[in-house]
């Protein structure tokens, strides 16, 4: 048994707060052990010191990529606890920011997944067009991330009409580019060979682990908080829950890409139907004693917030559960038994929040070979098997 290299070769883009330890026998993964906690800042304890209106700003910094999801779920919880009504226009603004964030989060993940299997062109390409969405979000909310739009009972700021009109052209370019990416990904033989039938999450296991979001929808279970517990204006928009049955990594890629297209379609509808005038905040005075649950469909799955209040202006108890917390342990069902070279992309396929996907993976039982490299070579072998030096996906993206 070779010695365990203490720190895996770290990823140049991001140092890894989460460390995996894979036990491997020849080519097969036996067990995965994860040490997390580097990111634990004790946010739940912090929000008990803040008033109800201050908590959204704390909760926004739980995760950098879905900084609209947590405040939205928190506001839903407070509104559920206090029976607070939200004006129509505020619902429209909230849903618009939510869908734009879904686009930027899924594009970020598409770039990362491409990088993990050795397609750096996909990485550069996806992150280049993600800037479009970030510009739109900055136009509407003033910041690329951490938008600070949410407030229990409504929204902090209104969005003028001309800003909405300015956002339209970017959405159309995004639609073409995402469609191009979607078609290119699906009919690329190397991508298919690399991701099909890999890291399959059975429907039964998905229910046991309580998996959420695209990870569970790719296993054929149509769980989607936007449809099950309609909030915002989702019941007035025409959209559909996207599911696939295969449950493998390719299915998850497909669900995420189709959801991006769906999100673009919804954003355009919202821009058309956004009411001109109308209040954007119902100014709730206080929150009556009681408890409230808020769940929101974040890009990675259901974001769950529980708020307990005793009538004062501070929450008595605030429980936060991010979607990755439930999706992460599914690696026991999807990663064990697979080949080593696929371990990186399987762990990344549940789209754990960006920094959890890293490959600071150290290996027992193998002479410290780094997983990222194995994953990249696996793609190259397949390219040679198909006799291509540049896969169709890369050709499409290169011109």
């Amino acid at each position, binding site marked *: 048994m070779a010695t365990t290299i203490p720190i895996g*070769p*770290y990823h*140049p*883009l*991001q*140092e*890894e*707060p989460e460390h995996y330890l894979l036990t491997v026998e020849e080519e097969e993964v036996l067990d995965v052990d994860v040490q997390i*906690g*580097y*990111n*634990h*800042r*004790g*946010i739940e*304890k*912090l929000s008990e*010191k803040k008033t109800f209106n201050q908590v959204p*700003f*704390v909760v926004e*910094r*739980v*995760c*950098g*990529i879905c*900084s609209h999801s947590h405040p939205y779920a928190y506001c839903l919880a407070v509104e559920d606890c206090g029976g607070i009504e939200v004006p129509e226009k505020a619902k429209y603004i909230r849903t618009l920011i939510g869908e734009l964030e879904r686009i930027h989060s899924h594009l*970020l993940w598409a770039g990362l997944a491409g990088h993990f299997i050795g397609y750096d062109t996909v990485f*550069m390409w996806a*992150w*280049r067009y993600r*800037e479009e969405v970030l510009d739109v979000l900055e136009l509407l909310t003033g*910041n*690329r*991330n*951490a938008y600070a739009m949410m407030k229990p009972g409504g929204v902090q700021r209104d969005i003028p009409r001309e800003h909405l009109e300015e956002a339209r052209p970017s959405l159309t370019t995004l639609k073409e580019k995402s469609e191009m990416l979607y078609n290119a990904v699906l009919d690329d033989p190397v991508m298919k060979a690399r991701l099909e039938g890999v890291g399959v999450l059975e429907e039964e296991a998905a229910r046991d682990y309580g998996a959420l979001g695209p990870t569970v929808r790719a296993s054929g279970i149509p769980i989607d908080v936007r449809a099950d517990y309609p909030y915002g204006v989702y019941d007035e928009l025409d959209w559909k829950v996207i599911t696939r049955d295969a449950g493998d990594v390719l299915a998850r890629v497909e669900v995420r890409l189709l959801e991006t297209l769906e999100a673009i379609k919804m954003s355009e509808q919202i821009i058309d139907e956004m009411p001109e005038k109308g209040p954007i905040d119902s100014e709730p005075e206080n929150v009556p004693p009681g408890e409230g649950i808020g769940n929101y469909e974040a890009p990675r799955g259901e974001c769950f917030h529980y708020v307990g209040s005793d009538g004062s202006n501070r929450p008595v108890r605030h429980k936060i559960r991010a979607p990755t917390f439930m999706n992460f342990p599914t690696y026991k069902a999807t990663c064990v038994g697979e080949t080593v070279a696929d371990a990186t992309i399987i762990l990344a396929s549940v789209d754990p*929040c*960006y*920094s959890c996907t890293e490959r600071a993976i150290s290996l027992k039982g193998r002479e410290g070979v780094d997983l990222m490299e194995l994953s990249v070579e696996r793609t190259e072998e397949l390219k040679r098997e198909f006799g291509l030096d540049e896969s169709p996906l890369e050709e499409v993206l290169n011109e």
Partner: protein
Amino acid sequence: MNWKSWGISKSPWLYHVNTGSCNNCDIEVVDCLTPKFDVERIGGKLVGSPRHADVLMVTGPMTRKSKPRFERILEASARPFIVAAVGTCACSKGIFHDAYNCVGPVRKVTEDFDEDIMVVNIPGCPPRPEAIIEGLDAGLKALKEVEI
């Protein structure tokens, strides 16, 4: 201004340290490398080891578990180097100032470790890539004044 600090200002090699950040700033640091902002124009390059590093790009409010690791990295880096605290959390623990598990802004931890390391604060949540590059530039200029 001696040639050592002139050298660093001409080719600042970056090493990225995440001490429990919500990875909002980490993505902006990575954005500095992508085509739109490209830090290589001013000689910047992401390196793989603290030994090779000139600028430590530190993000996050320094959670309790990350502190010993960060100190080991400070020890391992070759002098002279700058610590760039990227983002409000790194500058002043920001919104996590009274969180039980966050043990202090980067400046305090660095100064407890060794006072004459220079710390540059780049506020913003997240700071725009242009702000990060400007902060880097300001830090390198400040380093020129200091006699090494």
